[in-house]
């Protein structure tokens, strides 16, 4: 029997991988993908919460699933904007390496 704990563990592992990607990788495209991974880790936990929270009428709690739809929508928008920015950046600087982008540095 797969319990809620198992789902949460997977979710946590995914989130950690995503976080590590954001923190450690230098390529902006990979960082963007890692962000997506973290969002999906969160979605997984939300869906699991929904599945394991059954109301008096025998149906799962749909609130969490609605939440997930919102997250997917926002993630799509985010990817669209993020990739557009990335393309613009690449055109301007011919690089996607965060180490080369230091204009804000004092």
């Amino acid at each position, binding site marked *: 029997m797969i319990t809620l704990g198992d789902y949460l563990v997977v979710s946590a592992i995914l989130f950690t991988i995503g*976080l590590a990607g*954001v*923190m*450690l990788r230098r390529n902006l495209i990979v*960082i963007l993908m890692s962000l997506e991974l973290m969002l999906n880790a969160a979605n997984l936990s939300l869906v699991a919460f929904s599945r394991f929270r059954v109301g008096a009428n025998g149906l799962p709690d749909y609130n969490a699933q609605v939440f997930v739809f919102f997250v997917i929508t926002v993630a799509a928008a985010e990817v669209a904007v993020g990739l557009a920015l990335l393309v613009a950046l690449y055109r301007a600087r011919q690089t996607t390496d*965060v*180490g080369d*982008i*230091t*204009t*804000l*540095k*004092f």
Partner: protein
Amino acid sequence: MNSFYPWLILLAPLASATVITLFTLRWKSLSCAISITAVLVSFCCSCLIFAQTATAAPEFGWLDVPPIFRVPLGLTLDRLSRTMAVLVSGVGALIHIYSLGYMRDDQGKSRYFAALSLFMFAMLGIVFANNFVMLFIFWELVGFTSYVLIGHWFFRDAAADAANKAFITTRIGDFGFMTGILMIWMTTGSVVFAEVAPRIPMFGGHTTFVAIVALLIFCGAVGKSAQFPLHVWLPDAMEGPTPVSALIHAATMVAAGVYMLVRVAFIIQVSHTALLVVAWIGTITAVMAALIATQQDDIKRILAYSTLSQLGYMVMAVGLASNEAAMFHLFTHAFFKALLFLAAGSIIVMLHHEQNIWKMGGLRRKLPITFATFGAGALALIGCPPFSGFFSKDAILAIAYEHNPLIFALGLFTAFLTAFYVIRMLVIVFFGNPRSDRAREGRESPPVMTMPLIVLAILATIGGFAFFARNFLALPNEKGAVFVPALAIIALIVGAGVAIALYRGRATEPVQIELLRNKFYFDEFYSWLIHWTQELLARVAAFIDRWIIDAGAVGGSSRGTWGIGAVLRLIQVGNLQAYAFLFGLGVVALIYFAVLR
């Protein structure tokens, strides 16, 4: 109806001043008439209430904050104030009449008489005030009218400066006076004399406090009565018209300080320290002013310094706890000093405003009435028996002899100096040969000026005799040793003798003492003091402006912002992941504080 006479005394001059200022400034003769009528009404009412021992005036409420503060408009009608009212309005009336002659060609005659009426109102207000607040208000009003009258010829720089000097110098004393009044109100909860007096024993053990209060109140008298060290304004005040000098700066206003001290003697006499200080201030003033007077050339300045010296005697008497002697001298002094000033005015106006005694000479033939009356005043001033000054000065010296031998010795020395400089003035002005064309052409003044002189001369002559003065004053007990008057007469004869020997037939000053000619350099010292105080304050202000406001507030906020920015920009490392890390940390911290705490 009788009970309104005291109010009428006060209000007649006020009405006159108001009417003249508002309506009759253009009609000069009418203004004179109104002013003189008002002062005569005051004088008649003063005489009427003087005769009635049991008069009471209605009291009006004014500032009434029930439990803590009450200032009524009430009048004190004891023997002291009734005598003083007769004196002030009587001398005032004579001087109003004299002014008709002295100021007859003056353009600002209406303004002059309005100010004179206002002065009478203020001075009588001081005399009758029954509480400290009223006293203080009239006190300031007197200072203001004095300012207006000294500066009557305001187009002359010297007069305008003298008016400012008089006003500002007396303000210094008045500040102390006001502080003293506030302290009395704080401790006794009342400003009415009759209520404060019984509460004075409350102070019992607090001798220092009482001394401070008494000396602060004395400060007011120091300013107004021109005592050392605030005496510098009085000689300069002689820039005003001579009748003003006679009325305000010799007979009445400067005596107001002494009158006030006598009025509040119940406070001063509680503290021995205060009495001692008062006595010594009086003594120092008397000696110092007499010393300066010996070397002055301006007839009005000599008289001004003699006024200072005589006021010193009065303050000395107050300090020796003898109010009777102080008031007695005030009483006789008012007559003979007003007389001397008016006689000097008669000389000055006949010599076309020449005031230098070395430009006079031989005037006894040209101005016989002036000479006779001036002589009577001078003899009274030096205390020659049987003129009035002899009795009152003798009373003060006798008291001094009983209490303090050193003050007595200095008083005697002052008597010697007084005789010296008065006889010097008399010899130079009236004897010898005329030393200028103006002196050769002089004529006697018109009767409107000589009549007040004659009346005052009679009063100055008989004013000291007990049979006359007893009607007005409680005379001091004559129990002094016989040799006190004897010593005084010897001092007088020696002083007069030296002066005659030194100055007879001289045309220029034979002895020049720069220290005395320059009035002990008081004016120079004060201007130096003010200059350096101002310089010091300016430097402190500049320091505060430059280093605290400019460098601290303005520069500090700019440099502070810059410094904080310098620290904060270290966070901007330019590494995207570091930002993300800090951002994450911030989110974690927010969640921690928002949810878990």
